[in-house]
């Protein structure tokens, strides 16, 4: 009797574990990875803003900021439209530290471009820096996109 109960209990537990695995996968499958197109547009906008500010061209700054905000909202809304949001495993402290690194990098890219442009007459420097920033952001988005699908291929195998 004890063995039968133990067997049933073990079988029930296995069924419960199987159903947990199934639901976890179902949830993860619903995550919409960051759109590569929207990500590319956002990367170009940020790179352009850094390049233009570095070159001392402020005419389009306001419109670029508005477009960057719109694109960011569009990316967030696209992710939320699936009805699930991905769990960020970074703690609040790590996110704060990350922001503390990214914000100075953003401003140093602009200041670096301005310095090279005004002191050494390298008019192309801000545009090269802007290009590097664009490629860096795009690479981050593309790698996040690929790692999302690799994770599923790994899980399916």
């Amino acid at each position, binding site marked *: 009797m004890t063995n039968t109960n133990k067997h049933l209990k073990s079988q029930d537990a296995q069924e*419960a574990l199987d159903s*947990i695995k199934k639901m976890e996968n179902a949830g993860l499958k619903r995550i919409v990875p960051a759109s590569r197109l929207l990500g590319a547009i956002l990367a170009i906008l940020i790179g352009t803003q850094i390049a233009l500010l570095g070159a001392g061209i402020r005419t389009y700054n306001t419109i670029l900021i508005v477009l960057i905000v719109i694109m960011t909202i569009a990316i967030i809304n696209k992710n939320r439209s699936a009805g699930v949001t991905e769990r960020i495993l970074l703690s609040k402290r790590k996110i704060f530290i990350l922001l503390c690194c990214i914000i100075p990098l953003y401003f140093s890219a602009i200041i670096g471009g301005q310095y090279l442009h005004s002191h050494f007459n390298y008019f192309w420097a801000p545009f090269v820096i802007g290009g590097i920033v664009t490629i860096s952001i795009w690479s981050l988005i593309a790698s996040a996109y690929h790692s999302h699908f690799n994770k599923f291929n790994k899980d399916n195998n």
Partner: protein
Amino acid sequence: MEGSKFDTIIHAPNRLQICALLSPLEQVEFRVIREELGVSDSVLSKHLKQLEDVGYIKQKKSKVNGRERRWFHLTAKGRKAFELHVQELKRIVSGLL
């Protein structure tokens, strides 16, 4: 498997599935949980309320295009209880009594 704990609130099939769905995600919308579980709104609401009452999940409401959407997420307490419950299930399966 130390510290594993069988949780009767979580173990009910629908609530177990709800916790499993929420566990790898930040938050999930009501309609998604309903679609994945294949249950009616009232049945799902009942189970969600039970989990909410013991502090395992929390809900947030947001309005999109005038429509109210309910988002659910596991609390730290709920996540811990779910992890301990899964550990206990694994312990039972492996036969470590």
